């Protein structure tokens, strides 16, 4: 049985004054197996975030359903951890208390919370920054804290919506290695949205490509690159072959998006 089943999920945002209704997502189905690392690739505005938000329970689909371990998803919950593209650390809490947030909501004893928080902060390389406030951190450090916050809650699946989108190229590559290292260690099921092809191939066990708006799944490619992967894999012929194929797929969709907007 799949860990996560997305069955015929579609989404139309209703018309508002001055704007027509937006069809963001055509009926979309996707089966995610336990321990999968799936990256979702697609041009801007194709409904990637919408799909992820439906899975998170932050958006109700206009049709279809999402099942996690066979259970229907009705709203947001701690079994689906999320890292957003925007920085969403709580600015009034220290780094450590941000990571403790979900544990505290669960009513866990403070000592236990701290032990878990410190373990995950060490894992994302933020030892020594426990007492900083988010405003004192760089963007990369904030997203690492957000990652630790989501992981500390031990969700069944991790949803990541372009978490490194606002970071510079070098930081971004280091973050990819960090996340991949964490995944290789405990194989948590991951759904990762991006529009960066290298990023998508490097981390994924499967890359799903979405079409231009209204989005639907256009192709689904298994990435058979050995683990553990180092950044050096990005220069291998196998990687280049995946990249060439995906670049072609995405290019067609991006051209469609542009001509649609023209």
């Amino acid at each position, binding site marked *: 049985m799949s860990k996560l089943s997305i069955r015929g999920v579609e989404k139309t945002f209703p018309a508002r004054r001055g704007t027509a209704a937006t069809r963001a997502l055509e009926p979309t189905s996707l089966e995610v197996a336990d321990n999968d690392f799936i990256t979702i690739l697609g041009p801007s505005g194709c409904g990637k975030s919408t799909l992820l938000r439906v899975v998170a329970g*932050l958006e109700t689909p206009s049709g279809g359903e999402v099942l996690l371990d066979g259970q229907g998803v009705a709203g947001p919950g701690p079994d689906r951890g999320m890292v957003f593209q*925007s920085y969403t650390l709580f600015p009034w*809490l220290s780094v450590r208390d941000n990571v403790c947030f979900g544990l*505290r909501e669960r009513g866990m004893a403070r000592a236990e919370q701290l032990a878990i928080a410190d373990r995950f902060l060490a894992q994302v390389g933020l030892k020594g920054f426990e007492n900083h406030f988010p405003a004192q951190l760089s963007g990369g450090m904030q997203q690492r804290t957000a990652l630790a916050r989501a992981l500390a809650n031990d969700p069944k699946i991790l949803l990541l919506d372009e978490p490194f989108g606002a970071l510079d190229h070098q930081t971004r590559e280091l973050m990819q290695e960090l996340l991949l290292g964490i995944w290789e260690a405990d194989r948590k099921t991951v759904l990762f949205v991006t529009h960066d092809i290298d990023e998508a191939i490097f981390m994924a066990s499967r890359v799903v490509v979405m079409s231009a708006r209204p989005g639907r799944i256009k192709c689904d490619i298994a990435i058979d690159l050995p683990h553990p992967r180092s950044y050096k894999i990005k220069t291998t012929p196998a990687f280049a072959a995946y990249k060439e194929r995906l670049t072609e797929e995405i290019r067609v969709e991006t051209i469609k998006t542009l001509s649609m907007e023209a």
Partner: protein
Amino acid sequence: MPSLFTPLKPVAPTLRTVLAVACFALFFLGWGVATYGGFVKPLFLASPGDTLVAGVALFREFGFAEDIAVTVWRVFAGFAMAAAVAVPLGILMGAFKPVEAFFEGFVSFARYLPASAFIPLLILWAGVGEFQKILVIFIGSVFQLIIMVAVIVAGIRTDLVEAAYTLGAKRKGVVLRVLLPASAPQIFEALRLVLGWAWTYVIVAELVGASRGIGHMIIDAQRFLDTGQMIFGIFVIGLIGLITDFLFQAVNARLFPWARSR
């Protein structure tokens, strides 16, 4: 020199103080020129020196310290009552749209009812004692404060709320541990503003049917055409306002250091 006037560019602390003091100095200079220079008759405007003499006499002979204490107590009692009602209600309105729908219309209507127009009615209901004065301040502040708090809470970033939901927070957790801390610095700022308005209401309340208080002293002084005393009374109000403002800002910086480091 022109670089001093770059938009939003901060000035050095010493220059800041110098400029602030310069403004006061200019004010007193203008006042001195107008009165000592014989441009305005003493009957209409006392000179700075006469005002100071009148002030000393007020404290020495007329027990002005007690007037000040009475007025300060009235302001803080009325203001505390208003805050005790407005802050929780405003938070509920900001957080829960049905509560907002229920109260918003009425509060917006009540907000425009001038507190001073209630004074005759309040005297009828509550007499001319302390409670009536406090009620004037309460009525004058509570509706403004409710609306301000509701707007602040409704404006809290939704992505923070969504992050809290994906970390397992329930409704209560979102209100108490996201909306409340996120809006606290701004609510504090709103309290500071409304406290300033409360001072105008207390003086109006004391102009009618009072036997003590700064406002009463000013009305008394008017009967004897003692402009020195009147001006001194007005200055004392300004001075107390300035002090409370400083206190509020200091406490705000102390309680919410995270809101400053941005």
